[in-house]
């Protein structure tokens, strides 16, 4: 039976929902032990223990783990995976996992499956290539410890279970001093997290300016949605980079995705393919976003949004 070490993502003492989604992938592979690397990580470990599928949580608590630096975490993950004798190490395919997991794979002299969409067998997976315009089935070698990252948009969060045991362990790994955390600047705010929100409203080049983007925020607040953007909107400085949805930004799977003034470049579509219902509003009836939209409305977003606001 395959055994998986799942790397928990957390920040500010809270378990990130991406861990729950990666759990859904990990438990399709085998028995799952969750690893929490943190400084004062008890609350995160306790939360991880209630993720359905966790058989054990190991907590590696040390000052060096205060920030999620790949160079610091990777040698510890490698040592822990070897100590536990697991067959797989899985993390979420968020920027945290994208940064970290390949480093783990290289230190293990192993291979990695990026962006797992589905587990067909413990060593057989589906993953997207070419911005999701093709899906490949890949078979990984069975010698060594296989590393993978789970595409969070492809897996549903797991439910809760009665807490499994949490064990504090120390990992004997030499840590480098060549990488130091300086600071983190987030847009923050009270809006729902883009990657977890059931509803997302997003704006593109058609919004026109940073000031105009206010209308997108208003629409989102009206229906309690997270806010996203196309690359064009981010590049034009209308909104911060962490709002970008697409091949190289965030890949999301809300129940409702409403986009305004987005033309629908294939790179953007790559980020929303798993959305339940895509609503597109665009002035240009030829916009390619309408090819994938479940509901399309040809119209000016500056007329449509105020109308929606008054009617909702």
């Amino acid at each position, binding site marked *: 039976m395959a055994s998986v070490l799942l790397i928990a993502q957390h920040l500010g003492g809270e378990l990130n929902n991406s861990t729950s989604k990666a759990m859904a992938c990990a438990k399709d592979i085998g028995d799952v032990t969750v690893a929490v690397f943190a400084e004062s990580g008890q609350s995160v470990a306790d939360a991880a223990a209630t993720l359905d599928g966790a058989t054990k949580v190991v907590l590696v608590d040390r000052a060096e783990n205060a920030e999620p630096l790949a160079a610091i975490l990777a040698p510890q993950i490698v040592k822990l995976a070897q100590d536990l004798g697991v067959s797989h190490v899985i993390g979420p395919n968020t920027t945290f996992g994208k940064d970290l997991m*390949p480093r783990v794979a*290289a230190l293990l002299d192993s291979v990695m499956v990026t962006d797992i969409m589905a587990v067909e067998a413990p060593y057989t997976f589906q993953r997207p290539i070419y911005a999701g315009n093709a899906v490949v089935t890949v078979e990984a070698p069975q010698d060594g410890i296989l590393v993978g990252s789970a595409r969070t948009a492809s897996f549903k969060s797991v439910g809760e279970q009665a807490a499994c045991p949490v064990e504090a362990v120390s990992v004997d790994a030499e840590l480098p001093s*060549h990488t130091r955390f300086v600071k983190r600047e987030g847009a923050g705010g009270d809006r729902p997290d883009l990657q977890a929100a059931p509803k997302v409203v997003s704006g593109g080049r058609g919004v026109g300016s940073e000031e105009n983007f206010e209308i997108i925020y208003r629409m989102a607040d009206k229906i309690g949605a997270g806010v996203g953007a196309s690359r064009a909107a*981010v590049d034009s400085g209308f909104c*911060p980079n962490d709002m970008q949805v697409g091949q190289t930004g965030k890949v999301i799977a809300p129940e409702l995705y409403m986009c305004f003034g987005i033309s629908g470049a294939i790179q953007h579509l790559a980020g929303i393919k798993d959305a339940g219902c895509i*609503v597109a509003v665009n002035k240009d009836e030829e916009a390619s976003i309408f090819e994938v939209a479940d509901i*399309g*409305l040809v119209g000016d977003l500056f007329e449509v949004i105020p109308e929606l606001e008054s009617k909702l």
Partner: protein
Amino acid sequence: MKVLVSVKRVVDYNVRIQVKGDGSGVQTEGVKHSMNPFDEIAVEQAIRMKEAGTASEVIAVTIGDDKAVETLRTALAFGCDKAIHVKVDEAVEPPTAAAVFAKLAEAEGPDVFLMGKQAIDDDSNQTGQMTSARLGWPQATFASTIEIADGKATVAREVDEGLETIEVDLPAVITTDLRLNEPRYLKLPDIMKAKRKPVDTKSLDDLGVTPKAGLTVTKTAPPPEREAGIMVKSTDELISALKDKGLL
């Protein structure tokens, strides 16, 4: 300071790729290829470092068949001083690419190794991290800004939460994200000049790298199709359609 920058020849980002009917792969013959867009940003960054006097020499490296040389010529037209072509006829997966780049880094001794954060064909996002791990170097992935001073790089990284800044000792691998810079348009004289710049060709044997058994692709399929949608004429129709679906 010496800078190495890796480039990959990929299907152009504007091409709508087609999956072959027999599921054996993606149609790559007869379609436009160009430099991976993230690598273009890496090359641009290297050249800006040279223009700012931070870098004294920039070497472009690639792995691929004979056509990959075209991509090296593009890098040379940007202003790279020379190029190394590691000639391999079969596609190379990230662990092998990382082994090659680590060998080149050991031989050339750069202070900074710039790479695109991912190639837009296989979307793996592995090679930079794997290269730095093999070398025991720090990594700064998804760079949005890079400042080099006193043997250190301060890199603001594009992360899901916003921007995260880290400081790494050099030498380091830095992978580039979209907003690090906007690559310049190449001018004809630079393209002509690039044809005379040196390209060194090496084989995997020369570097002592044996390709590692990687992932076997057993099937390539188009993504699941979404059901055809509907067009509505007014916000009233839109609201009622969403209410029907239980979304409002």
